[in-house]
């Protein structure tokens, strides 16, 4: 809490900080000056991975990194008055009295924060507090009141609602009359009622991923009156998202998905507190984000993040409502609910990244993701409003394309589960990229050597006779290059089709292999080389996406 202008901190150089009251040879990381830089960031990450932190937190890590601070340039020692800890275990009381007027910034150190204290009529209630601590706490609350009055002005309907308490209703409630009117149609549903709606209002739900599943689920939860929604994503809106990511519209192409979602959700329900988390959820930030919420919706698109979210939810004892969709199918389940199985109980080992498909490769229908996201929202509402689950211990399979929806019974919690079992070995987040063998974005091994590849430019300038496009026929039907033939990858590598018409008699004539992004074509080259060792096969770097960007901007990309 700053007590006066602190612009003079801009004159300090990296790394400047105040002494820590508990170990003055270390600096306290409640306040420090540094120059934002990617190099420092990377070096810190490296150090954190290699050596960890001697105190398990940021202060240990930063002191190890900027280790010359204590005996280096004294100008980098900021006066203690910029980082005063009124509640530190040891305090020099006469100094606090003597220098009270010079305090520039107060640091409420430790687990108990100002908002944990009862505050009424300008007084903070608390035991064993020194006079100056009380003074600072009360000052904090006064500022907080001003902030609340300035930035959270009660709307006309809230004011109208508060008048209700003076009326004739004898049922005590945290809901205002306008809220009862607004949510009435869902409150009169059996299982919700007044307690259910109050439950929604005080709940905090984290939505990880604002894509095809996060869009419908967050929309329904905001509209239903969930008090706080946390929104995690680190991506921007792309035109190829719009067929399924229904919060985002054309004018938001290029806009951060969190910003786009917040503006839409705020328009839906201005009373919901929307918390942005513009980060890539990873092992170092997931616990601190997830612990702020009651329930988590997994709306991500990759196995790596799914294991991370599951483990954190188990460690923090949070309910996880998980949804996934691909092509024309979806799956929904609730994990870690009242002793039920977790995601790892059902999927103890990660799938081979080579065998999993994502939406870029396999596609997905918008309404399918709408069904899955809606089921996740319905489940979250049920759990928060009635404390009962529809999908714990079950896996809901939906296939709107075939008109099939069914719930299957899952196994109970595994006693030997590494994270939720009786003797867990995963007690903090692990390296999920290593565990899954693949990051958030799929990594591909380059199968082809340089001599087996040509660029799109080289292909255009050659008078190619044999060009095999290995995309599925449905994609070949969307766009294709002149004089190319379609032999789908799956057919090619499983030898289901007769390839001989495509293999030239003269082995010196090169055969070019083409796909969408230049991955499958490499595997196809290796497969054909093994089959026809005399012949010459080459794959086209970057595939048709490369063709659009390098040769013909009018060639469609999808």
């Amino acid at each position, binding site marked *: 809490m700053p007590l006066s202008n602190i612009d003079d901190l801009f004159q300090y150089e990296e790394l400047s900080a105040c002494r820590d009251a508990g170990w003055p040879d270390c600096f306290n990381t409640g306040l420090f000056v540094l120059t934002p830089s990617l190099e420092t960031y990377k070096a810190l990450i490296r150090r954190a991975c290699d050596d960890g932190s001697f105190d398990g937190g940021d202060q240990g890590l930063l002191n190890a990194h900027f280790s010359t601070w204590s005996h280096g340039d004294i100008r980098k020692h900021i006066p203690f008055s910029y980082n005063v800890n009124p509640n530190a275990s040891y305090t020099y009381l006469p100094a606090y009295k003597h220098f009270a007027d010079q305090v520039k910034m107060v640091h409420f150190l430790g687990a108990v924060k100002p908002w944990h204290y009862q505050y009424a009529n300008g007084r903070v209630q608390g035991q064993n507090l020194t006079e100056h601590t009380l003074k600072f706490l009360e000052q904090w609350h006064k500022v907080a009141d001003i902030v609340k009055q300035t930035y959270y002005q009660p709307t006309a309907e809230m004011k109208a609602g508060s008048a209700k308490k003076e009326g004739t209703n004898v049922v005590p409630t945290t809901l205002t009359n306008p809220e009862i009117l607004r949510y009435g149609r869902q409150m009169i549903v059996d299982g919700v009622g007044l307690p259910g709606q109050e439950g929604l209002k005080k709940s905090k739900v984290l939505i990880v*991923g604002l*894509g*095809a*599943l*996060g869009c419908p689920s967050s929309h329904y939860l905001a509209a239903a009156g969930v008090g706080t929604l946390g929104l995690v994503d680190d991506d921007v809106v792309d035109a190829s998202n719009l067929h399924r990511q229904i919060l985002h519209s054309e004018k938001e192409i290029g806009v951060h998905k969190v910003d786009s979602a917040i503006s839409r959700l705020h328009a839906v329900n201005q009373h919901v507190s929307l918390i942005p988390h513009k980060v890539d959820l990873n092992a170092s930030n997931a616990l601190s984000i997830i612990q702020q919420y009651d329930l988590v919706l997994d*709306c*991500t*698109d*990759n*196995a790596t993040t*799914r294991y991370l979210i599951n483990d954190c939810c188990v460690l923090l004892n949070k309910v996880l409502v998980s*949804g*996934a*969709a*691909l*092509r024309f*199918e*979806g*799956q929904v389940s609730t994990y870690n609910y009242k002793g039920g199985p977790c995601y790892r109980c*059902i*999927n*103890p*080992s*990660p*799938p*081979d990244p080579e*065998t*999993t*498909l*994502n*939406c870029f490769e*396999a596609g*997905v229908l918008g309404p399918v*993701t709408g069904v*899955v996201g809606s089921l996740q929202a319905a489940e979250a509402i049920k759990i928060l409003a009635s404390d009962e689950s529809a999908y714990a211990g079950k*896996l809901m*399979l939906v*296939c709107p394309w*075939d008109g099939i929806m*069914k719930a*299957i*019974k*899952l*196994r109970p919690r595994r006693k030997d589960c590494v994270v939720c079992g009786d003797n867990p070995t995963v007690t903090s987040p692990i390296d999920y990229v290593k565990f899954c063998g693949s990051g958030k974005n799929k990594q591909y091994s380059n199968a082809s050597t340089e001599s087996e590849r040509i660029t799109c430019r080289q292909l255009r300038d050659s008078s190619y006779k044999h060009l095999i496009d290995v995309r599925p026929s449905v994609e070949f039907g969307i766009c294709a290059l002149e004089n190319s033939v379609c032999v789908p990858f*799956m057919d090619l590598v*499983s030898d*289901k089709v007769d390839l001989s018409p495509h293999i030239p008699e003269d082995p010196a004539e090169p055969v070019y292999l083409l796909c969408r992004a230049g991955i499958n074509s490499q595997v196809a080259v290796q497969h054909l080389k093994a089959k026809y060792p005399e012949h010459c096969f080459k794959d086209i770097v970057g595939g048709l996406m490369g063709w659009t960007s390098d040769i013909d901007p009018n060639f469609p990309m999808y």
Partner: protein
Amino acid sequence: MNITIELAGGAELLFGNQRKHEVTLPESDKQWTMATLLPWIRDNLLQERGELFMQGKSVRPGILVLVNDADWELAGELDYVIENKDNIMFISTLHGG
């Protein structure tokens, strides 16, 4: 013995993109169990490389096995004795969203 084998979540792509197979298991003096059914499926129905379906004696990670709409763990996994008209389902776990 007649059983139904169903595939979902993309597992059908390993089986010629056919989601439902009505099959007749050949007569045998030994009982059919999941342990003997899996290699039979691999050798008779699978259209792709065996390792995309099986790992060791079981299915590879990422495929859930259901016996009559319940996780096969509840039925005894590989020891489950197949009965006439059983429905055995293989579902790839989805990750997209």
